[in-house]
């Protein structure tokens, strides 16, 4: 199956807003595998990722009418919904999530920290972002990728990377600043 175009996805979302369940099924077929990958990567647990994906698609169905094609590409909009649900899931109040669960999560992250292969894949998919990421220092790159792909908070990043909280915060902030400069600069030329 070839990847659906933005125009096709936008059309499906517009029909979802009109309560067209067939369009919604098509949208799910076209995007769920990519979005599930995002949920699995952040939550690190299949069962959690399934919950997150379910919540996300129910939300997509109910909010399709508020999707604005001028403001964002359809896949960006849907991915943001999935990432937000996944992050909310990880950041649930602690009475719901035990510390053992969080420890297990951190251990999983250690096993599968994003490495050069992830950057290489990024180069094929999103060339501009990749070339801007390449301009960051290794520490900035690593902390941004860990946060993006694994949903680590500042505190968890500090633990994971074995560096003081202040140092990690600075890496992230400078990295984001440089990324913005680079991406927005490229946009203008």
């Amino acid at each position, binding site marked *: 199956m070839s990847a659906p175009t933005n125009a096709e996805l936008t059309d499906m979302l517009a029909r979802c*807003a009109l309560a067209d369940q067939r369009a919604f099924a098509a949208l799910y077929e076209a995007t*769920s*595998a990519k979005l599930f*990958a995002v949920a699995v990567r952040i939550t690190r647990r299949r069962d959690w990722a*399934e919950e997150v994906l379910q919540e996300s698609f129910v939300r997509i169905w109910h909010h399709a009418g508020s999707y604005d094609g001028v403001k964002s590409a359809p896949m960006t909009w849907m991915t943001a919904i999935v*990432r937000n649900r996944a992050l*909310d899931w990880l950041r649930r109040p602690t009475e719901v999530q035990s510390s053992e669960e969080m420890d297990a999560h951190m251990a999983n992250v250690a096993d599968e920290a994003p490495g050069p292969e992830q950057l290489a894949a990024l180069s094929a998919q*999103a060339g501009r972002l990749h070339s801007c990421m390449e301009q960051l220092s290794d520490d900035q790159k690593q902390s941004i990728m860990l946060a993006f792909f694994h949903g680590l908070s500042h505190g968890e990043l500090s633990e994971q990377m074995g560096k003081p909280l202040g140092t990690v915060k600075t890496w992230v*902030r400078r990295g*984001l600043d440089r990324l913005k400069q680079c991406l927005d600069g490229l946009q203008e030329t």
Partner: protein
Amino acid sequence: MNYEHPTIRDRLAAEYVLGTMPGRARRRFEAQLKLSPVLRGLVSEWEARLTPMASSLEALPPPRRVWHAIEQRIRGNKGASRHPGFWNSLAFWRAAAGVATAALLILGIVMTNVAEPPTAPKPMMVVVMDDMQTRSPAITASWEPGSHSKLIHLRVIGHAEMAPDTAWELWMLPGKNRPPVSLGLITTHELQTLEVPAQIAPKLDNAWGLGMTVEPAGGSPSGAPTNPMLYLGPCVKT
């Protein structure tokens, strides 16, 4: 946190999208996000910048059961899909009748306890918000009491229209002269689901009622209603 300073605001938006904010900061930021169109714009910009990173992930088809669960939850979009039969249930209409009576007392903001209808198999919280001008039901809301993550299922009755550059904001009315608490913006869609902010969710079951006001686009700038309640109704447990 200073949400007014442009640089700080942009950084917060970036950290929110990246996901580095701890839980409480994240929920505070989300509350601000509901109130500020500027902040929402910055978040969209950061989403556009960072989200393409996700395209590098290998596709992973989810098990079929996920789709079945989703389908269950959205099916029968013409009715309240999550609670089949609920809108036809006797308990609901008894509650609605109780509400109509209660509506007469609403303007005095008297804390009435609507007579408890016979218990339905599954308890539900129901609010029938009446249009304060026409006195007819305008929006119904329902949610499961007690659950920790609260979703309010809303049904807009009739074909309501929203004036340009305005927004509909839903409020929890705690009662006992305490001020309304924003639950977020809603649309004119017939069926919609609103996720209650985590810090408000535990209080919702004990609220006196819900109300809706018309606010400037983006929602009330002050966090308090700027107009009188247009739609209003008390919470009833079925």
